[in-house]
């Protein structure tokens, strides 16, 4: 299982990576939207953990750039509580992401990851 973490905060990237790697996931991280789009375009991730407030562009741009693979992968977990988001999205996009508002515990993170990587 390959997971990409996109967040401009070192602590979040590092903390999530530590927790996920302990459970056996393969984890990569980026700190900007541009890097994330590049990464997803050239790698097959099962899941992307995405913060929306990124320094170069709004995280939602990832949605447009990421190709929707088989079975709706990669799924995206948005680490934010913005509910307004849904209104600006197509039905297809709405089906492929989940919310995990910060702050979350390690258990909550693992539960969300599990839910979004099981078929």
């Amino acid at each position, binding site marked *: 299982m390959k997971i990409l973490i996109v967040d401009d905060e070192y*602590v979040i990237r590092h903390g999530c990576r530590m927790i996920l790697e302990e459970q056996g996931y393969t984890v990569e991280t980026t700190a900007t939207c541009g890097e994330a789009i590049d990464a997803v375009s050239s790698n097959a991730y099962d899941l992307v953990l995405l913060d929306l407030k990124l320094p170069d562009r709004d995280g939602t741009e990832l949605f447009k750039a990421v190709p929707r693979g088989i079975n709706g992968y990669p799924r995206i977990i948005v*680490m934010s509580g913005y509910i307004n988001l849904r209104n600006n999205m197509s039905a297809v996009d709405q089906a492929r992401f989940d919310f995990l508002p910060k702050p*979350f*515990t390690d258990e909550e993170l693992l539960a969300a990851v599990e839910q979004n990587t099981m078929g």
Partner: protein
Amino acid sequence: MNPSLDYRPLYNAFREIISVINSSIRLKDVMDLVVWKYSEVLGARGAIMRLLNIDTDELEISASYGISQAYLAKGPVSLHRTITDACRQKKVILIEDIVNDPRVQYPESAREEGYRFIIDVPLSVADNVVGIIRLFFSEIRRFSEAELDWIIAIAEQCSCALGKARLIDSYEFKYLQLATHAEKLSALGRMAAGIAHEINNPLAGILLYSSNMIKKVPPGEPIEEGLQIIIDETIRCRKIIQGLLDFSKGRDPRKEPTNINEIIDKSIKILENEFHIHRVNLRTHLASDMIDVMADGSQLEQVFVNLLINAVEAVPEGGTVEVISSVGESRTSITIEVKDNGPGIGKKERDKIFEPFFSTKSKGTGLGLAVSYGIIRNHHGEISLQSHPGKGTRFIITIPVSQDTDSGLAGISTQETP
């Protein structure tokens, strides 16, 4: 009507003066128009309008026409008894002996200006003295009864116009106060949302690491307890911030199935500190069989926070506030009560309590209950008040579970008739 008296000139003059006075709603304009028109129509040299300052009990110059600066510079005139008597009896006072009359405070100056005759016209609303218009003439004039009566008639209209202008002024002032306050609140809300989002990141770091570290500590170690405390307190921060964000959200009513007990809990959480600081006891009796209602949770939260704040401020230290939720018998509506054992609310205030701008607090905007009333009405519910001085206060809110069959929406159907 007396057939030998020609009322037409009086009537025409009346019509003219009144339409001019009513042509403006601004207090300053109305005052200036009154003194001008009165002088003109009566053929006076000039006029001074003095309005009563309730605090100092002095008549202060508010407007003048045709009077020299030197004369105006004379100090304020205190309320002479004969003036108030005249006001109550709605009588025009005619002063012919300017030099000796006690009601003329600066007789030498008056003589110097060339005034030989003065009349005082009382301005009153109901039985209250509002002020006086003093008209100055160069020669002594004789007025018939009809003319004196006419002068009073004009005064009555002037008092009305002044009263209304004052009211509008005070509303405008309140409106500005309110708009400023609303703008501040809005800015505060935006700031609160910004801060909340900013804080969430560092909190995320704390929670991630502490929740992970506690699993790496041998169980029973003292450090475990410390880590658990860190986790619990951080989760508590999370709840507080979520409450803050919910509260500062915009006003678009987004209705969804809502458990009112959860909203009540959130509201109480927001005010925990207030209850603590004021040493107020809070008791809740929330129905265990509560059913969901279609509602905008954050708007209802606003209502409960408003009622709770009022209750906390109403009771003395050691007082009690109770919140009770229940489901109606037919299970088609729910009821929430906020009770306090404070001093209660008298009939006069009770009648006005939901009015916008009505407030018993010196710093209140007077909008809390008005907005709450509006929100409850938007939910097709009712909010009412039961209170008596010495017997505490009860606010009662009922909200229907579903709002499809509201009679107020008759004629507006969202479903096709079969």
